């Protein structure tokens, strides 16, 4: 399936890109992050991240659909 993945903060720095289209067999965010972490060498583990799917917070095991926008949310630091 094809996903749109956006990167922010330290994930963006490590990946070197703001966003990418990802062709993947992963059916949920957990599987997708495992793949992307291996590819980009992300330091942050899943326990440090939250997941958003199509602009809303979601669970790591929520089934992904083709075309979904997936964002891994590092620890926030606004304010």
């Amino acid at each position: 399936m094809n996903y749109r993945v956006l990167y922010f903060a330290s994930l963006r720095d490590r990946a070197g890109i703001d966003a990418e289209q990802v062709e993947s067999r992963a059916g949920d965010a957990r599987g997708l992050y495992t793949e992307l972490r291996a590819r980009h060498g992300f330091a942050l583990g899943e326990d440090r991240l939250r997941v958003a799917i199509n602009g809303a917070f979601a669970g790591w095991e929520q089934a992904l659909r083709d075309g979904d926008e997936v964002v891994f949310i590092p620890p926030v630091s606004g304010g």
Partner: protein
Amino acid sequence: MFRLSENPIDAATLTRELAQAGAGACATFEGWVRDHNEGRAVLRLGYQAYAPLAKTEGERILEEARKKFAIMDVRCAHRVGTLDIGDLAVWVGVSAAHRADAFDACRYVIDEVKRRVPIWKNEHYADGESGWLHPDNTPVE
């Protein structure tokens, strides 16, 4: 109303928007860019936001404040982009009939915004380094 802004936040105008004839109290919070953090000299900041989710989560926090406290209006604005020392990074304002509710709601909103809204602060240090921060202002890695 929760706003992300590429341009300087006009606190005076935002405060006037909170006015209502029955409002006797207005509490505001402003977050300013400090010249240091955790003992390191800071030159400037960059804020990134995942804008659609930041707006949704920001509005959710304001709605929670309206339910939890007896307030008349509540608004929040957060800068994104590059900021210099002393710049206004985030503004929260609350109007209410009485001051206890205004203070409590104002504090609730800034605490939750810092904890939950997908905005990230990148500090640029005097030594040439930069780093992404946690909500407690410690480095991410």
